[in-house]
């Protein structure tokens, strides 16, 4: 405890604090502006950290990480475009709430859920990091394959009107996921001898296109829905203690899911958000009201994606294994400072590790303060005439897609998938299954095939491991419950 206080004090020195404010602010802004992503923000900032003191550079990076997980909800709720993969499900309930004139409440709940989720993961990080890191190592290839398969089954949960349309969208996504160099044998697939296609369909430009382009097109056609005005007084934004207390179950389970997913390398914030959204929906007494503006639907993904931050830092700090792109960059920044993360970092530079925890703690507070203070500014977006708003979003999308890998191929990818997304929405095909399949498809393929290499082709490997078996059983139970619900739904309908 003393160490933590000392760490917080270290991180409160003026320089780290200044950069923590800057980092949290940039994280929020990069996540909130459609087209720009946190990954891009980190890439731009990284070269500067090489010339900073270690505590300062970590304050900056942690600030961006934490701020970024909160900022994505702003554009998701206000203009129905998630600014960050972590927020892809936040718009499902957040935007309907905004249309009902409850944008302020939705934003307030999103910010507080982010804050509490992040705090939960920080507590895990400080208290049981080594134990959690050992637990994470139990997740080998078969366990990950089964977990991701469960995630893929959740595609059914995004079928609002038609199950077949959701499945078509998902299968389309899986097909796109096969394009590029295959993850096991490095054989180019469907590349038509174009070198650029070897990198495959990377999901960030796809996400930017799928969500932003349809909104831009409908905005330009004048068919965008204008939101009712709402009070931006701080008192009206803060969720009442009663509201938060009513959400405690959602917050607890989402924080747990988020932290766990964060521990597992190569899964990512989108998975955390989707899993916890689905869990909240299934455990709710009224699951059918999700997707129409339910506070749980905002709280669950936001708590989970913030909780992921602490989770992802655990294997990075204790074992030197990055859990996601942002922690990979942190790892690079730390090693260039001569502070290679690993089991010895806690012993040799314990004070420094606690200063990272300290800056995490401070970043959480800064983020919620900046977000709440900035809310009056953010909502001005709704007053910007569509003729100005949507063209500028379009510009950001092009810049954002390009800057990820300095590649025009990604810009075309963004535009192509944007048009696809527009027509899918027009004909009532949900886009979430498509995106989910593009994110999860390669992870599933890689781990499933790796498992079979490890077992010499024996599929029993998926059933012999208890953790893997549990996920498979959950997936089966889920599919059966969906099937039963559907059939009873149709029966009632035909009777009526």
């Amino acid at each position, binding site marked *: 405890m003393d160490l933590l206080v000392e760490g917080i004090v270290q991180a409160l020195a003026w320089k780290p604090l200044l950069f923590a404010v800057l980092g949290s602010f940039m994280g929020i802004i990069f996540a909130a502006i459609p087209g720009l992503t946190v990954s891009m923000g980190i890439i731009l900032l990284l070269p500067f950290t090489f010339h900073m003191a270690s505590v300062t550079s970590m304050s900056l990076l942690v600030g961006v990480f934490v701020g970024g997980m909160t900022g994505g909800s702003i554009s998701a709720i206000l203009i129905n475009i998630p600014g960050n993969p972590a927020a892809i499900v936040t718009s499902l309930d957040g935007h309907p709430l905004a249309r009902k004139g409850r944008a302020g409440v939705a934003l307030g709940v999103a910010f507080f859920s982010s804050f509490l989720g992040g705090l939960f993961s920080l507590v895990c990080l400080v208290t049981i990091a080594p134990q959690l890191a050992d637990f994470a190592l*139990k997740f080998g290839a078969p366990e990950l394959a089964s977990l991701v398969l469960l995630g893929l089954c959740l595609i059914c949960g995004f079928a609002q009107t038609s199950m077949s349309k959701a499945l078509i969208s998902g299968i389309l996504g899986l097909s796109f996921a096969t394009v590029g160099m295959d993850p096991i044998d490095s054989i180019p697939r469907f590349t038509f001898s174009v070198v650029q296609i070897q990198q495959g369909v990377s999901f960030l430009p796809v996400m930017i296109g799928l969500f932003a382009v349809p909104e831009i097109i409908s905005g330009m056609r004048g068919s965008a829905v204008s939101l009712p005005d709402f009070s931006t007084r701080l008192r009206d934004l803060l969720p009442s203690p009663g509201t938060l207390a009513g959400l405690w179950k959602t917050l607890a389970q989402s924080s747990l899911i988020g932290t766990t997913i964060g521990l597992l*390398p190569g899964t990512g914030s989108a998975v955390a958000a989707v899993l916890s959204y689905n869990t909240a929906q299934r455990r709710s007494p009224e699951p059918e009201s999700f997707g129409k503006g339910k506070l749980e639907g905002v709280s669950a993904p936001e708590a989970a994606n913030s909780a992921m931050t602490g989770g992802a830092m655990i294997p990075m700090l204790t074992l030197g294994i990055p859990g996601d792109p942002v922690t990979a960059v942190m790892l690079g920044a730390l090693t260039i400072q001569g502070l290679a993360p690993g089991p010895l970092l806690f012993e040799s530079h314990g004070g420094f590790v606690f200063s990272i925890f300290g800056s995490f703690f401070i970043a959480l507070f800064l983020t919620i303060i900046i977000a709440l203070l900035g809310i009056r500014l953010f909502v001005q977006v709704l007053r910007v005439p569509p003729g100005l708003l949507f063209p500028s979003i379009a510009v950001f999308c092009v810049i954002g897609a390009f800057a990820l890998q300095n590649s025009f191929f990604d810009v075309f990818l963004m535009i192509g998938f944007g048009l696809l997304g527009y027509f899918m929405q027009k004909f009532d095909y949900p886009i979430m299954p498509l995106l989910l399949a593009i994110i999860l498809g390669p992870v599933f393929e890689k781990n499933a095939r790796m498992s079979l290499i490890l077992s010499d082709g024996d599929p029993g490997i998926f059933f012999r491991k208890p953790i893997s078996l549990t996920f498979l059983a959950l997936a089966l139970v889920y599919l059966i419950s969906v099937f039963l619900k559907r059939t009873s739904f149709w029966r009632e309908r035909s009777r009526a």
Partner: protein
Amino acid sequence: MKKLLLVFALALVVAGASVVPASAAYPTKPVEMTITFKPGGAADISGRTVAKAAEKVFGQPIVAVNRPGAGGTIGFAYVKTAPNDGYKIGWLSASILTGTTMGKLPYDYRAWDYVSRLVFEGTAIVVRADSPYKSLPDLVKAAKSKTLKIGSAGSGSFTRLTASALSQKAGFKFRHVPLGKRRVPSLLGGEVDAISVHPPEVLALHKAGKVRMLAVSFPKRHPAYPKVPLFSEHGWDVGFYQFRGLHVPKGTPKEAVQALHKAFSAAAKDPKVLATAEKRGFLVSYMGPDKFPAFVAQQNALIKKVVVSLGLDKKKKMKK
């Protein structure tokens, strides 16, 4: 009238700029250096550090730009098609040889001009601390009686080729597992018996006694892990090492190559570069444009032999 004059003046400036030969006072503007891997990784850090140091002598900014994807092929293809005026350069690694021999790039290694080699990186065979194998001969002996699972970054990765070349030299067979980003957790979790990996990724774990680096394929012992023997000390030198350096589009003017050589050979002696090398576990070893092309050709021959023996070049034939 004013506008017309302005247009005229502009036209003159543009015309003037194009008349001056590009080589007259190279470099007259910033140079762009493509790094073919992600920000924050090994290639990025060594590349940026070296470029920063070279700027002092070079006299113009050297701007590092990451063009990652598909094991470096995206960035290599970019440099291949960039204008050969000396203002587009690339930070290459031995991946360019695996990429071309395996047919991932539709040309061979002679499609670029090679300027200089800057660094070497090791490739280590690593086991868990509780593994029964205390040394590389232990592992080789065991591998001769049963099939061990050895992981690497991927099928065509440099780490895999090193492990395969070792197995051919030492005379054993193993089951290769392309672990990708999960290589270190997979070793720690006990899925594989050993991994072939670049030392910086496991150095902290090695020092903490969680894993054991059995041996490293490297030209000489590195001060960051002085007790780890070399492959060559056991008589299994594979002959090729992960190297990084500078290449340019084919036909880049000699003056530009010489100016780059001058700047980067100075960078190889820069104390900041040497300090980073020590921390990151790579070795600075400079070779200029007089010898580097021959070195690349020699490494290519060795790598190609392994690629062909593993049948990895078949994809090229399949495609045609």
